[in-house]
Structures are given as structure tokens and as C-alpha cells.
């Protein structure tokens, strides 16, 4: 049954992709067909994968057109199924949203091509999560990268979209190259391309090779996940693509990197040396902190969200790194807790970041700008979008009782439990990582005060913002699905943790949920002997009760005693949008405090007529230094260009020279390559 649902999902997507291509001359039909098949496929995958999580043995499917060396086998074990469920939920909501979102593009853009790549991307994602063979996995991985590339540069007449697409393609392929080397190492050790022969294999390699393969996998998957310092493609790609694609990219495409790490680190490796866990934890902390710090400086709504993806990948990796460390320290139960924290946050991030990107998409579509400084007051014109975005903002800030709080709380608990597991100084990493997670979460809350308040509250800052219209019904429905998801994943925490049992059983050999669910499913505990408890359900119930018993009746009574008046503003009359605090001003204190990182640069030019106190015109420019691009990638690019220039000498274009090269290569191969 599981394979039936899975395969029919794949077939629906594939058929949808081809149908869209055939319908490219009829944009309206292509739009409906493309979104319809995407939605149907997602729902089929969702049902099939949800059943597969609790299936005892993994469902295995061999596609008929394989041969013994390059077989096309699919295996849906709990880990694959979990990521597929995440994909199904997000893709269903995004497809629903796309019905309305793409309508505006009808006639202006090739929606047939869009539908083709969109369905292809969904299909390749499902295959990446389930392929159980190196060859098949890399094929799916490439199809995913290429279809993502085409969707990123879908608005290809814009230079920034083309540039972002090419950057993504280069980075993505560099990552795939690393993965290829890593997989070849495993293949030569096992003599097979099947994942099933890799289990625990990496730990039998020599320590040096083991470490090298680990780093290759970490950085290979890290590129896709947006791990610092491999993240530079991410803010570019997520901001220029159509917003429904951004939601998919940020919600699930970067999670393929997380899936790869989970698969490799927790199945292909046995208990790893402790340095591996510490490296992952440290990179997680750095990604989380730098992600949020750069997000704070953005006023491009979508770039801001993209930087937050880097932050959240960091938080997920903090969970993974801690889990790896616990494996080294022989603490399977704690490893299960940390792994659950990481995976829970993966699902949560898919819901709230998908939601936020869809919300941003609605806003950008109706204001025609991504610049927050030109928005404002949208809560009145777009009430549903506003409330959905608010739910996402509260969730991503890790505030109770929504889902971000639960997974961050679990991460804290894992870090806290780590301190007692070892006597070495390594244990200092846990509390320090915890305190930096606290800083990250608090800065994220700061950033989302800005990201919600500046576009949605107060007065409109431009004419476009004043003329904004609410998103269409399907767009609102898509956002509402994810908003409900954020609430459900938060309040239903004690039900959700049971889902992770098969996964921890598969990877670590333990089940954690029975120790984590307390008080008849009312409270969640980390499962450690004295660990604290939380009850998001309880908090939400008390909020609702208090709201219904006190807030509503009193607010009703006070309504009669309240009058609307102009904003007092310390007695300054005539409030206009020009008086409002801007996003730049809001983040100014942090820009000054962290100036060592940002190296802000500003330029003010003022023109005077009479006195310098009354300038007639001011031009203000402020920018921060993109540290990684400037100090890491720019020198690297220059090196590569210089090398390429030097290599031009042998590419003279003379046919005789090329024949000589071929001859020399042949001789060398005969001498060294062919062994008797």
C-alpha cells in the first residue's frame, strides 16, 4: 500500500510535469494542471509516507529499468518517510498557494515551463529522500539541483535572478563533487553502490579516511543546507525566485542537506570519534548566530527570511552535533533526545519558514517591492496574510506555545544534559552553545519584531503599500494550512514526539517517547531523570480560558470608554509615515554594537541653502560589509581566474597541439592506468 501511494505520487508529478510542458501555449490550463498535479502528488506522498513511518520493515521498490550495476531502488524507511512527510505537508500548502499566486503571471511568463520544473522538483525531492543507491541518489540530487536552478532564475530577464541562479549552480555542483568523492570512498570500501551495504561501514575505515569522508559529506551536504561558510548562494537564490519557490527552497530543498547528514552520520557511521560531533555543533552555533546577525541588517523582506534559514539550519545542526557527541560518549538515550530536537526543528522550520515565505510572497505581490521600508500598515489591507505572518513570526522566534519553542526547548535540554556526560573540557561546549542559542533566539525575536511590525503595522510608507490588496482565496488557504500546522506542531508536541520513535529505533536503537510524554500526554519532558517539563497544551488552554473569562468581557466593556484619537507622540502634531521608525533605525543599536562584524559604512551628503542646520536635500547611504564574500570567496575567485588565465596557454586552438595532448595522455594511461 505504501509503495502504491508513493509510486502513484511520483507518477502524478511526472505526468503533471509533462502535461505542463505540452500545455505551455495555454497558461491558464497549465497553471491549473501544474498546481493540481503538484497538490495531488503531495497528498499521495503524505499519506504513503505517514503510513511508512510506523511500518516495521522499510518498503522497498525496484524500478523495472535498472541493471545490476546501476539499479534504481527506492527504500522508504522511517527516516526517509519523515522527510517525505515534511515534503508532503509543505508541498501541499505551497501548491494550494500557487493556484492564486501564479495567476498574476499568466500571459507574462511561461507557466508551462514553471509547472514542469515545479513538479519535477517535487518528484526529485521525494526521490532524493528515498533513493537507496548511490547512483540513483546522485541522479535525483542533480535533477533537483537543475530544476531548482531553473525555478530560481525563472524571472530570467532580471540580472540578479540570473546571477543568483548561476551562483547556486556553481556552489551546488562543488558540493555534489565533494559528495561524489565521499561516496566513491564508501563504494570502494564496500564494493557496492547500495546504501544497505554502507551501514556502520564508515567506522571500519582508517581514522584518517574516516575523518576525510566525514568532512567531505559535511561540506558536500552543507552547501545545500546553507551551512556557514558555504551559505553565500542562499540569500541570493531565496530572494529572487518566485515566492512559492522560495518557500519550497527554504522549507525543504535545503533540508535535503540535513537529510543527507542524518542518513550518513547516523547510519553509515557507527559511534563516531568525538571531534566530529564537536565540529558539527560548533558549525551549527556559528551558522545560527551569523545567520540571525546578518538577517537583522536586511530590509529586503525575502533576504531577511533567507538569512533566517541559515540560522535555523544552525539550530538543527546544534541538535545533530549534540546527538553525535552523545553517540561517541555512549549515551544512546540522550543522543535520541538531541536527534529528536534536530529533526523536530527540521519539520518546524519547514512549516513556519514556508509560511513566512508565502506571507512575504503575498506582500511582495501586492506591493511590488521587497523593500520593507516601502511597506507599512498592511495589517488593515491584508488582515489574513498579517495574522498568518504573525503566527509564523512568533513560531520562528521560539516563543511559547508554538512549535519553534518546543524544538528549541528540546535542544536546550539536550545541551543541558550533555554537561554531566563527560569529564573532559569538551563539556564546556554544551552550556556555551546553549547560551549562544539563547542569544540567537532572542535576536531572532528582535528581527521578527522588525519583520512583522515594519511591513504590517503603523502607516503605509509608500503609495504601493497604501493600495495593497489582500491575497486571493487559495493563497490565503495555503498560508492558513501552514499556520494551523505551526499551532498543531506546538500544541501537539507530546503526540508528535511519538513519531520519532521508529527513527531513533532505526538509527540509535532506542525509543525515547515513552520517557518524554508525561501526565497523560499533557506535558513533555526530555526523558532524563530529573528533567524539567513543559506543557504547551496547558499554556494554550490557560491563555484561552483567561482570554474568554476576562479579556473578552472586559475589552467589550472598555470599548465604550475608549475614543479614537490621533497618536499622541509626545505632543508632536501631524504624524506622517515619515516620522515612523524605519527598519534601518530599528536595527541601528545592533549595527553599532556588532560593528566589528558588520564594518558598517555610511555616506551622508547634504545640500544646504542658508544654514547647515536646514539642509534642502539629504542623501543617505548605509551598507555593511559582506565578510565572507569579501575575504573568502573573492580571493578564491581571483585565484581561479588567474589559474584559468595561465591554463589558456595550452588552449592555443591549434589542432596539432590537441592531437599531441591526446597522444601524450594515451601514452600516460598505457603506462600507469592499465595494470596487467
Amino acid at each position, binding site marked *: 500500500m505504501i509503495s502504491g501511494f508513493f509510486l502513484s505520487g511520483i507518477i502524478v508529478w511526472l505526468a503533471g510535469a509533462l502535461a505542463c510542458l505540452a500545455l505551455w501555449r495555454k497558461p491558464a490550463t497549465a497553471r491549473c494542471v501544474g498546481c493540481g498535479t503538484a497538490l495531488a502528488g503531495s497528498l499521495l506522498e503524505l499519506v504513503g509516507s505517514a503510513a511508512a513511518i510506523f511500518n516495521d520493515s522499510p518498503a522497498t521498490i525496484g524500478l523495472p529499468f535498472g541493471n545490476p550495476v546501476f539499479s534504481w531502488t527506492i527504500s522508504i524507511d522511517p527516516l526517509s518517510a519523515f522527510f517525505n512527510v515534511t515534503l508532503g505537508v509543505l508541498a501541499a500548502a505551497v501548491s494550494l498557494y500557487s493556484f492564486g499566486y501564479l495567476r498574476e503571471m499568466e500571459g507574462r511568463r511561461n507557466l508551462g515551463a514553471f509547472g514542469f520544473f515545479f513538479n519535477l522538483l517535487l518528484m526529485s525531492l521525494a526521490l532524493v529522500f528515498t533513493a537507496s543507491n548511490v547512483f540513483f541518489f546522485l541522479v535525483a540530487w542533480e535533477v533537483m539541483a537543475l530544476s531548482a536552478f531553473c525555478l530560481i532564475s525563472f524571472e530570467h530577464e532580471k540580472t540578479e535572478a540570473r546571477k543568483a541562479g548561476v551562483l547556486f549552480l556553481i556552489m551546488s555542483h562543488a558540493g555534489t563533487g565533494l559528495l561524489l568523492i565521499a561516496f566513491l570512498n564508501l563504494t570502494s570500501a564496500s564494493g557496492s553502490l547500495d546504501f544497505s551495504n554502507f551501514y556502520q561501514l564508515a567506522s571500519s575505515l582508517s581514522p584518517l579516511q574516516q575523518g576525510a569522508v566525514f568532512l567531505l559529506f559535511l561540506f558536500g551536504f552543507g552547501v545545500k543546507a546553507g551551512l556557514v561558510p558555504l551559505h553565500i548562494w542562499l540569500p541570493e537564490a531565496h530572494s529572487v525566485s518566485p515566492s512559492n519557490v522560495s518557500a519550497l527552497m527554504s522549507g525543504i530543498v535545503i533540508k535535503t542537506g540535513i537529510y543527507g547528514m542524518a542518513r550518513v552520520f547516523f547510519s553509515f557511521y557507527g559511534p563516531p570519534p568525538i571531534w566530529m560531533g564537536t565540529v558539527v555543533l560548533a558549525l551549527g552555533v556559528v551558522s545560527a548566530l551569523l545567520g540571525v546577525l546578518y538577517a537583522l541588517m536586511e530590509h529586503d523582506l525575502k533576504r531577511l527570511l533567507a538569512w533566517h534559514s541559515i540560522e535555523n539550519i544552525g539550530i538543527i545542526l546544534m541538535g545533530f552535533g549534540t546527538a553525535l557527541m552523545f553517540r561517541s560518549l555512549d549515551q544512546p538515550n540522550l543522543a535520541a533526545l538531541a536527534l529528536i530536537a534536530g529533526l523536530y526543528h527540521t519539520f518546524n522550520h519547514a512549516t513556519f519558514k514556508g509560511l513566512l515565505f508565502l506571507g512575504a510572497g503575498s506582500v511582495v505581490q501586492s506591493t511590488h517591492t521587497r523593500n520593507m521600508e516601502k511597506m507599512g500598515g498592511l*495589517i*488593515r489591507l491584508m488582515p489574513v496574510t498579517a495574522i498568518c505572518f504573525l503566527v509564523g513570526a*512568533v513560531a520562528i*522566534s521560539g*516563543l*511559547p506555545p508554538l512549535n519553534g*519553542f518546543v524544538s528549541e526547548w528540546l535542544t*536546550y*535540554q539536550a545541551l*543541558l544534559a550533555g*554537561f554531566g556526560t563527560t569529564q573532559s573540557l569538551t563539556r*564546556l561546549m554544551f*552550556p556555551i552553545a*546553549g*547560551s549562544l*542559542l*539563547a*542569544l540567537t533566539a*532572542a535576536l531572532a*525575536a*528582535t528581527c521578527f*519584531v522588525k519583520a*512583522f*511590525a*515594519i511591513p504590517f*503595522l*503603523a502607516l503605509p510608507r509608500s503609495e504601493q503599500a497604501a493600495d495593497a490588496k489582500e491575497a486571493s482565496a487559495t493563497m490565503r488557504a495555503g498560508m492558513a494550512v501552514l499556520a494551523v500546522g505551526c499551532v498543531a506542531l506546538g500544541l501537539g508536541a507530546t503526540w508528535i514526539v511519538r513519531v520519532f520513535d521508529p527513527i531513533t529505533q532505526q538509527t540509535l536503537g532506542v525509543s525515547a517517547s515513552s520517557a518524554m510524554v508525561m501526565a497523560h500526554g499533557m*506535558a513533555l519532558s526530555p526523558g*532524563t*531523570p*530529573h528533567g*524539567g*517539563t*513543559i*506543557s504547551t497544551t*496547558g*499554556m494554550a488552554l*490557560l*491563555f484561552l480560558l*483567561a482570554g474568554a473569562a476576562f479579556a473578552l468581557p472586559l*475589552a467589550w466593556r*472598555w470599548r465604550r*470608554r*475608549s*475614543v*479614537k*484619537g*490621533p*497618536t*499622541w*507622540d509626545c505632543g508632536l502634531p501631524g*504624524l506622517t509615515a515619515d*516620522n*515612523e*521608525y524605519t527598519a534601518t*533605525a*530599528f*536595527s541601528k*543599536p545592533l549595527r553599532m*554594537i556588532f560593528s566589528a562584524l558588520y564594518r558598517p559604512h555610511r555616506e551622508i551628503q547634504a545640500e544646504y541653502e542658508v544654514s547647515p542646520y536646514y539642509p534642502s536635500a539629504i542623501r543617505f547611504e548605509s551598507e555593511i560589509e559582506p565578510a565572507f564574500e569579501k575575504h573568502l570567496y573573492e580571493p578564491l575567485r581571483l585565484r581561479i581566474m588567474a589559474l584559468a588565465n595561465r591554463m589558456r596557454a595550452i588552449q592555443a586552438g591549434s589542432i596539432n597541439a590537441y592531437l599531441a595532448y591526446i597522444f601524450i595522455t594515451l601514452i600516460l594511461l598505457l603506462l600507469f592506468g592499465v595494470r596487467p
Partner: protein
Amino acid sequence: MIERIVESWAQLILLLALAPLVTGVIRTLKARLQTRRGPGIFQPYRDLYKLFRKDMVIPETASWIFAATPWVVFFSTILAGLMIPMVAADAPLGLFGGVLAVIYLLGLGRFFLALSGLDTGSSFGGLGSSREMTISALAEPAMMLAIFTVAIGAGSTGLTQIAGAAIGQNWRFLAPAQMFAFAALAVVLIAETGRIPVDNPATHLELTMIHEAMILEYSGPYLALVEWAASIKQLVLMTLLINCFWPVGLQPAWFGFGALIGIGWLLAKLLFLSCAIVLLETVNAKMRLFRVPELLAVAFTLGSLALVSTFLF
């Protein structure tokens, strides 16, 4: 179950009733130390009473966020207050969350206050929101390090367990780790409750104001709710500090004659801490905003020292 409900109501009443008193006592003590007479310790009650009876003006530019915020702030602060041990080591709603939940619930309130500061469109509101969020974000790592130190000692983030582990060890606060952690949390308390040298709670209409700037547009009952929530938050953080580090007088349970002794001890300890705060506020001047990160860096260092001393000593 019934006992829990009774406990919760008792602690709720204690929170609501005591919070304005603490504010009043601090104000009066401060006035006395500055050789003023002061308005008397019951003035905050009279202020709240007056505000609740007044009409209110809602800014035209504000949205429903502005009306929802006082409730969110008030309820989340009270919920946090029910999760801490006040009289008995057993916090009434300890099951619903420990020290992390308390911090994040206070964070929820702050999030909405900052939104409503920006909602009115007034530049003062934005200024307050920006500063409040910045300072609280920077206070967070120091707070978390100190909490980790305490939680490691007790083996839990549950406040019931933390206070339970501290009971009977009345001199434990002399341990180096505890003292460093206490100092770090004390600095964070000052920053979080907006007291000198970080923010001046007595200020109105100054460019240096933080919390007051955020709530500038509130009036009438909504202002009363916000002010009341602010004093409850102060009480919650003060109680957290004294009961985690100095559990003397903390009762094992809420019931019986012991509760009265517990309340007596609580009042005595709160008075002591209030005196310390008053002294600190009187001898210090308010810092420039951009010196505050340095103060919080000191708190972070203290937190790190606390952590290191847990296994050095």
C-alpha cells in the same frame, strides 16, 4: 488536582496583590534615601485603581495588535509567575514549564509590547521597541549561562526541582559558582526590569527612556494592565533570584500553617532585595545606551565564571 488549583489561585492572588506593593516599597525607599518623602508605599494601588476607572484614547493608526498586547503581556507574565516557587518549593504550575518556559513567556510579552510600540507609528514607540529588544537580546546569553549553572547543580530546568535541591542548603549561596551565577542574574534582572543603570523607571519624556517609550501611547485600563504586568514581571524575576539562590524559609508545600511562615520569609527576602536594588539605583547614574552592552558583557563573564567554577571548586 484540587490542591493544585487551590495553590494556583493562592499564588495568583499573591502575585497580583504583592507586585504593586514591591514597586511602591522600592519607590518609597528610594525617595527616603534621596531625602524626599515619597508618595507612600500604596501609591501604585491607587494609580492602578485610577487608571482602571479612566477612559482611554486609542491611536487612530493602531491596529488590533495594540488592543491585544496588554492582555498577552498580562497573561503571559502571570503564567510565568505561576511557574515559579514563591512560598512553597513546589511551583503550582511547575508541570507546565520550568525556568526556560518562564524566560520565553516573558519573551512573548516583550515581543508583543515591542510590536505595539511600533504599531502606533510614533517614533518614540519604535525607539523604545528597538532598544528594549536589543538590550534583552544581549542579556539573554548571560542569563542562560547563569541558569545553566543553577540547573546543572540541580540536574533539572524544572524550578520545583531547582528549589527543592536548594532547600535545606541555606548557606550554599556562598559557593563560588552560586555567587557568580547570582551576580550575573542580578545584572540581568536590572536590565530586564528596566532599572538604573540600564533604564530609568521614573523617567517620562526623555530621549533615554526605553520601556516607557514603548508604552507611551497607552492610557486608561490598558496602561494599567501593562504597568501591572511590568510590576508582576519585576516580582517574578526577584522571587526567582531569591528563591533559587537563597531558599531559606521556602516551604515544602503550600498547605497548613507553614504557608504563613513561607509568606513571611518571602516578604522579608523581597524587602532585603528591594533595599539592595534601591541602594544600587541611588548610588549609580544611568548609563549611556551604548555602554549597556559592556555591562551585559560583564554579566556574561560572570556567568562563564560561574560555569567554570562548578567543576573547579
